[in-house]
């Protein structure tokens, strides 16, 4: 009797354990009634307001998701906040900022590769070159979001004075571009030929145009190659722009201001300016595709969207929002409002987008450049690499170092950092 009682108790206890575990698991699996997520984004102005509008439209029809949207300022400020929040264990769930793929990449989190297999997403519709921009060490950790390239804006009045019709006969190569700048400067004394508000960004495009991929990636090993012969040639050309009096040395911070003041013929600036500049100057603004050395190439810039949360339901909520804002129609609207480039091929097929491209010379140039847009492998020290490039260009322009010495020095610094 005693033995039988003991056996029954053991069986009952074991069953209770099984049921309890099952119930606990069922409890973990159960979706909460409302999922609360935090989204930090570094899209400012009208673009940021439009993004908020899109997200709020989605949330209005999905009461089971509540999102707290926070604009976190510039890319640098946003990354400062995100890094500090991650260290404190208080990171937001979804971030939209430049180089956001570094965060999951360094954690070895490639969940995005599974998420994009969602049949409601159409991953194949994304522009291939733009997808590369969202990868870390060759693997997908994020999605491209606000993508831009550098556009060569020019002052049409200055070009007209030099007898040039750049809409019909734009310069294609850098040598042709130098000739055009010199003609414009000859016809407009006191004017600079060319400058850029982001020398590092342009320099990377120029490296690729000359057959240099900036860095070489073999698995997780990164080797800088921008100081090889092809890279040095680009550095020497950069120096020649200063020596010929076409580009002012070490004044890139003022490039856009000079252009808007009418004292600079060409400026290479983000395509995002398409939404801001027209109508703000006394002269008409035109645009040409970026000149090239051997083959056309423009380096992509902008922000990527990354899901940081490991919580299953929060991750799902973030994914639902991303799918919504990156759908063709919403992407098209966002692109037209913000001046950022469409990340989907289908956006360029929409009638209203085609009509806008036809009517807007600036937007047409920016979208035409998408066919040869590219991105190099993203890696952890790429922010530092940009800083080393910045110092190298500064040394080249000031004559403190030869292009070869400056690039070799930057390469040495990057290797030490890696």
């Amino acid at each position, binding site marked *: 009797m005693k033995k039988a009682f003991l056996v029954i108790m053991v069986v009952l206890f074991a069953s209770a354990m099984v049921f309890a575990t099952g119930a606990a698991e069922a409890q973990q699996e159960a979706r909460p009634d409302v999922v609360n997520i*935090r989204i*930090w984004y570094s899209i*400012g*102005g009208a673009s*940021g307001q439009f993004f908020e509008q899109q997200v709020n439209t989605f949330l209005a029809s999905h009461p089971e998701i509540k999102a707290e949207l*926070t*604009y*976190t*300022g*510039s890319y640098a*400020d946003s990354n*400062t*906040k995100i890094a*500090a929040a991650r*260290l*404190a*264990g*208080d990171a937001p769930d979804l971030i939209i900022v430049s180089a956001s793929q570094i965060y999951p990449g360094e954690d070895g989190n490639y969940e995005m590769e599974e998420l994009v297999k969602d049949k409601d997403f159409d991953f194949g519709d994304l522009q291939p070159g733009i997808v590369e921009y969202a990868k870390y060490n060759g693997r997908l950790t994020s999605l491209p979001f606000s993508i831009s390239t550098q556009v060569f804006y020019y002052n049409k009045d200055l070009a007209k004075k030099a007898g040039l019709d750049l809409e019909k006969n734009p310069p294609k190569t850098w040598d042709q571009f130098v000739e055009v700048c010199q003609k414009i400067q000859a016809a407009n004394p006191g004017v600079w030929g060319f400058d850029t508000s982001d020398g590092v960004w342009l320099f990377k495009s120029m490296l690729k145009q000359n057959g240099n991929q900036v860095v070489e990636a073999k698995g997780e090993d990164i080797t800088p190659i921008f100081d090889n012969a092809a890279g040095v040639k680009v550095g020497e050309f950069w120096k020649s722009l200063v020596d010929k009096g076409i580009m002012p040395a070490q004044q890139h911070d003022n490039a*856009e*201001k000079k252009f*808007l*003041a*009418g*004292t600079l013929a060409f400026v290479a600036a983000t395509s995002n300016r398409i939404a*801001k*500049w027209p109508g*703000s*100057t*006394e002269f008409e603004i035109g645009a040409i595709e970026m000149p090239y050395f051997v083959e056309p190439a423009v380096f992509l810039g902008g922000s990527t969207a990354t899901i940081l949360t490991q919580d299953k339901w929060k991750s799902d909520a973030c994914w639902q929002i991303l799918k919504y804002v990156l759908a063709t129609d919403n992407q098209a609207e966002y692109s037209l409002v913000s001046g950022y480039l469409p990340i989907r091929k289908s956006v360029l097929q929409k009638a209203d987008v085609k009509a806008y491209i036809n009517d807007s010379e600036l937007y047409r140039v920016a979208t035409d450049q998408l066919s040869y847009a590219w991105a190099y492998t993203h890696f952890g020290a790429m922010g530092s690499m940009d800083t080393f490039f910045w110092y190298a260009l500064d040394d080249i322009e000031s004559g403190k170092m030869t292009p070869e010495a400056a690039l070799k020095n930057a390469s040495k610094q990057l290797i030490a950092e890696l």
Partner: protein
Amino acid sequence: MSKKRYNWVVFAVLAVGAVTMIFPFVWMILSSFKTVRDVYTYPPKWLPSEWNFNNYASVFSLIPFGRYYLNSIITSVAQTVIQIALSVFGAYCITFLSFPGKKFLTTLIRSTMFVPMVVTLVPMYLIVSKLHGIDTYAGIILPQVLSAFTLFLVASFFASIPKDLIDSARIDGCGYFTIMGKIVIPNAKSSIATATLFAFLGHWKSYTWPLIITNKDKFRTLPIGMKYLVQESSSEYQVMMAAAVMAILPVLILFVIFEKQLVKSVTLTGMKA
């Protein structure tokens, strides 16, 4: 050179210096009334082609400027008051009191001046985060109220108060607080005013800590808001100038209030303001 001619030369040099110093402010005020085309015209225009008062309204429509302004006033005033109070007490202790470990403590406080703020940023953030101080006024204010610089600035002025005054007060039976309240502080009014101005200026323009500790517009301060204005109106310098004019008003008002004391303390010590 006769004294009269010498005075004219000095006046001319000072006038050139004054014009150089005041030029950016005049340009800022005039630009705040310009249109976007006036801002980018070359050669630059001194006066606006048409006086545009909409720039000031635009500041409020582009960012929640009023909220940021209020937050800056709340946090800067609170930080300044607490910092000055702590510095006065601390300076009194290290100047007039003797206690075990005084030298060691003074050296320790002084050594904190050599630690860059960025080094303490992350540990401070971790502590404030654990104490649920993110997006709170306390989280912005409290970590920034301690300043060895302000303490030693006040202490350097306290040290110039004659010891005989303190000794006489002690003989008359005054306690520590009475001596501090009735002898030390009244004799160091100008230095405390100087320290207040410096402290307020530092807190008013503080950027990095409020940037990291706040996520909601409800708590963000003016320097962060001004930075957003740079992003959102990248080609509208006339709007940024309007925001800048409004941003420097509290500092100007404080300077006007404390001007006499500031000049007096500079004269007494030869210290640059």
